[in-house]
């Protein structure tokens, strides 16, 4: 009970910070819309639906990366990770709260991005929406862990994409596979990815943020 209340308090804090600073979500929205616009004009006429779907996934992964880059900015700039890790609450609650907050930001960006994709390219079916939702969970789980690792390093702007993008490759494979037609099998793959990497990230966050 205490654990969930801690997660709730920390996630509420992250949402409140974004509501007031308005830095992450507007940037993600602008980025994903700009990217889809560029793809719309860059792709030759008559490009197939599957190729367009591939570009949608590229846009979504890099939009998520933008959000993840900002995820630990308040803690990094104000040294607040010290205050959070000193608290007797379970440290994985910090990770889970961040995942929920980034998930909310990414979800908001996608609420705009998916209709924009449908307008620019072609319609989106239920399988693609399900794949995007499942991929979001994995992206946020793994990305928040790598974001925390990057915060501790010096070249953090470089480290996050270098750590995150290789781990996001299976998500893109699953996402493109599910939305391009071979639905069930790839959706199952995304569920498996979420479960395995979510559990690993949850269990290892403690070691990432503590030096002692």
């Amino acid at each position, binding site marked *: 009970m205490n654990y969930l209340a801690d997660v709730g*308090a920390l996630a509420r804090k992250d949402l409140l910070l974004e509501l007031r600073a308005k830095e992450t979500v507007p940037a993600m929205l602008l980025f994903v819309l700009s990217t889809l616009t560029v793809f719309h004009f860059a792709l030759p006429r008559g490009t197939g639906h599957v190729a367009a779907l591939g570009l949608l996934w590229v846009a979504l992964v890099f939009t998520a990366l933008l959000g993840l880059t900002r995820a630990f900015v308040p803690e990094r700039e104000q040294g607040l990770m010290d205050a959070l890790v*000193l608290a007797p609450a379970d440290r994985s609650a910090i990770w889970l709260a961040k995942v929920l907050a980034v998930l909310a930001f990414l979800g908001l960006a996608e609420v705009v991005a998916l209709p924009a994709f449908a307008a620019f390219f072609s319609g989106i079916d239920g399988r693609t929406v399900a794949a995007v939702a499942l991929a979001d969970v994995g992206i946020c789980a793994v990305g928040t862990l790598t974001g925390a690792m990057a915060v501790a390093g010096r070249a953090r702007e470089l480290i996050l994409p270098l750590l995150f993008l290789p781990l996001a490759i299976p998500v893109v494979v699953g996402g493109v596979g599910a939305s391009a037609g071979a639905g069930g099998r790839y959706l199952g793959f995304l569920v498996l990815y979420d479960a395995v990497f979510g559990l690993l990230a949850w269990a290892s966050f403690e070691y990432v943020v503590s030096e002692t």
Partner: protein
Amino acid sequence: MLSARNLSKRFGVKRVFDRVDVSVVAGDFLLVTGPNGSGKTTLLRVLAGLAAPTGGELELPPRESIGYLGHEPLVYRELTPLENLQLFGRLYRVPERRERIGMLLERFGLWDVRHDRVGTFSRGMQQRLGLCRVLLHEPSLLVLDEPFNALDAAGAELLDETLTELSARALVVATHDPERVEHLATDRLAFA
């Protein structure tokens, strides 16, 4: 309470401090002094459990018993004092949170600005809020790094009074202004 023997810390080949012995129990006030870059902050981070020593033995009380104030006040600038203290009160399982937060905000002169964003505060007011955060869960060991930083005369006097009241607890304080707390110190550690 807090015991360290032969404590050392290195960053790569750079030695920060070596063979430091510290023993602090309830009622002790360890005053840590030394010039900039002498290792005071690193030692305090080790003693608060935020950094691992490279060598030696270290016994720390549980996390909920430690109150740490670093160079930064460690509060969210986009939140209000009330929201900051409610968050940390929740994480530290502070009983009767509302009353405790109200009392601390009153005491440190922040009650009237409790709904204002911390980012609009002066550095001194942020430091006062940082002290509220540290005292919120009534820790039995306080590790304070330059607690007088940015405080005006009234704030410094208030902190003097607070430290005197806390003399039954274990305190480790690093400062550039040792005269201010010299009378409270029961032990001293000077870095060269």
